[in-house]
């Protein structure tokens, strides 16, 4: 940890020196100056673990490509936002105005991206983010955004489909973090679950910083399942307290992409066995590329990659393919984003994927179940929903015309085009 931190510092310091030379040196080097990628991540504070995974995924990709994409050297400039909107704004400005980066990888959290979204649009900055805020690739699209992970609700549609059709779950209570990501996850689940004949009995919203979930767990009623839309370390706390109240086995536990991330498995105890979750990436996906990725990542960091690391590795792949298409040119920002959004992969660490016209990914969503494996836990893939779009099987026009999911509202009815996934 100490070494990686120092490395981050070095690259920041290095970037500073590079920038101070910038105006003088640039004309002479213009012919083959390196491509600059600014990485907005979180290395300090409560969100740091996810941010460190983001950095590891990005660095692994660049190391494997010898820091060269489409014949051009790549310089990675890492900035720590501290996991808050003000920090994201400051660091984004530094990257754009001082370091003159060609594109930004990140930021991590939705509220960070929302804080800098209009700034990024104003500067026509190609942005490859993990932040899941639904609207940014649909109702109020950022034309420079490319999202290779998913919107908040995207993986919840197949989860609801799977719960209703295959697990025959009829009633659920939900518990989610009390912020936009939680509303969009639960809203997405409800949208499909209602259509499939299921009922949400109670929606519980817990503040992001909830030390003790017991008051919420005590409110869970006699339902078939509990949908968990918690992020960060909250799922670990929740499940531990759920089990200690003697609730284990009383409900089917269903989770979104952050609730049972592969990187969290080492933190869970046996109480997590049987937990079913939906995620656009899974370390246990047995594609060749993914096997190599997991092996290399594990060797580099000593840990299994989850959605955070995988998304930024994918961002690297998308960037590389787009640069091949533009002949290594990055000057025309609009053309670069267009090339990124036009990339399409027959295989990747998450299987085949491409982008919709809003720059949001269309690809696999994995249903996984946590099983015991030796002394630890593993996410076993139990079903793959291919080609899942942020619009599921809804009519896109209708979807865009309805308001986004909210805390207490019931989603407007959107007829699904066909039964289940296609």
């Amino acid at each position: 940890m100490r070494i990686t931190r120092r490395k981050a510092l070095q690259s920041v310091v290095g970037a500073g020196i590079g920038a101070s030379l910038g105006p003088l040196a640039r004309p002479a080097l213009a012919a083959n100056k390196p491509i600059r990628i600014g990485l907005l991540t979180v290395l300090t504070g409560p969100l740091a673990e996810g941010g460190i995974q983001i950095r590891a995924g990005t660095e692994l990709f660049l190391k494997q490509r010898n820091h060269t994409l489409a014949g051009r050297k790549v310089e990675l400039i890492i900035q720590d936002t501290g996991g808050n909107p003000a920090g994201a704004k400051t660091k984004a400005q530094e990257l754009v105005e001082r370091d003159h980066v060609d594109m930004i990888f990140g930021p991590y959290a939705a509220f960070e991206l929302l804080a800098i979204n209009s700034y990024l649009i104003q500067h026509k900055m190609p942005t490859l983010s993990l932040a899941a805020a639904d609207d940014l690739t649909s109702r109020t699209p950022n034309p420079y955004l490319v999202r290779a992970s998913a919107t908040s609700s995207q993986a919840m549609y197949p989860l609801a489909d799977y719960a209703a059709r295959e697990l025959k779950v009829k009633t659920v209570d939900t518990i989610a973090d009390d912020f936009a990501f939680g509303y969009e996850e639960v809203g997405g689940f409800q949208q499909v679950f209602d259509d499939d004949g299921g009922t949400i009995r109670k929606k519980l919203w817990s503040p992001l910083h909830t030390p003790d979930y017991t008051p919420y767990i005590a409110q869970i009623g006699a339902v078939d399942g509990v949908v968990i839309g918690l992020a960060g370390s909250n799922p670990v706390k929740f499940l531990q307290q759920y089990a200690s109240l003697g609730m284990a086995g009383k409900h089917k536990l269903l989770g979104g992409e952050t609730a049972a991330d592969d990187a969290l498995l080492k933190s869970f105890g046996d109480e997590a066995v049987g937990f079913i979750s939906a995620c656009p990436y899974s370390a246990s996906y047995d594609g060749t590329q993914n096997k190599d990725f997991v092996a290399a990542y594990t060797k580099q960091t000593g840990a299994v990659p989850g959605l955070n690391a995988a998304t930024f590795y994918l961002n690297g792949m998308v960037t590389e393919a787009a640069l091949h298409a533009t002949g290594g040119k990055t000057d025309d920002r609009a053309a670069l984003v267009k090339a990124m959004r036009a990339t399409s992969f027959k295989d990747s660490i998450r299987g085949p994927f491409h982008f919709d016209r809003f720059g949001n990914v269309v690809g696999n969503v994995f249903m996984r179940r946590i099983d015991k494996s030796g002394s630890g836990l593993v996410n076993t893939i139990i079903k793959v929903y291919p080609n899942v779009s942020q619009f599921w099987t809804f009519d896109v026009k209708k979807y865009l015309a309805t308001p986004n999911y909210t805390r207490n509202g019931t989603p407007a009815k959107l007829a699904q085009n066909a039964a289940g996934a296609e």
Partner: protein
Amino acid sequence: MNLWLILAVNSIALGGLLFLLASGFSLIFGLMRIPNLMHGSFFMLGAYLGVSFLRLGAGFWPAAILAGLALAGTGAVIERLLLRRLTGKPQAQVLLTLGMALIVADLCLMLWGGDPIEVQTPAGLTGVVPVFSVVFPTYRLVVVVIAVAIAVALWLMLERTRLGAMIRAGVDDPQMARVIGIRVSRLFSIVFSLGAGLAGLGGFIGGPILSVYPGLDQDMLPLALIIVILGGTGSLAGALVGSFVIGFLYNFGQALFPDLAYVILFVPLLAVLVIRPQGLLGKLAP
């Protein structure tokens, strides 16, 4: 109804845990007149150190005691080397504790990583016990017993020993205490160390309930502040009452008024500040 019973029992259990956090905070606040903004950090650091002792092969209870002692030592060092130099400058002292809180948070991130760590409930206490018509985790009830034992021990110390009498004198009127020959600065060291140790012990004992994760410090510090302001600074009984009041408010508030989860803890605080600014059991400042 089961829900209410579970909430009631859990309120007491959470109150017990909060008391371990708040008792030391209250003593430090009362004697040294500063809110120790690194109290949450002591809580988190104790939890992390306890986890390391567990990994080194210590049993759960030895690890808890070691974590408490380690934090008592840390507290003494910080008081002697840093806070002591700023005697008489409360703003500087508060700023120092805030800065130290940030340093401790990043230090923990470097040493223990950012992944949440589950602390396993000690063997033999993993089960549930029936309480009236509901079942309740045994471990949480044990935490209440520990909290009560510590409350009694602290009370005896404060009321029945010479040291306790000196601390009470220091809380009531530090200048007069100095005049009659009490070395108040030494009391500062003792109380700060004791408070840090209690918080560290509480952090690890809270591990099987809360788990350990970056940000635990920031989750706990506001609770300590609320409890102490509610109960009255420098009053042990106030900390005890405040802990259980907050335990009940937290549990019932979140169940009854889920949309007010953020403010529910602050409403009674405001009421108390308006009606009884010194806190429920606090004395008016001299």
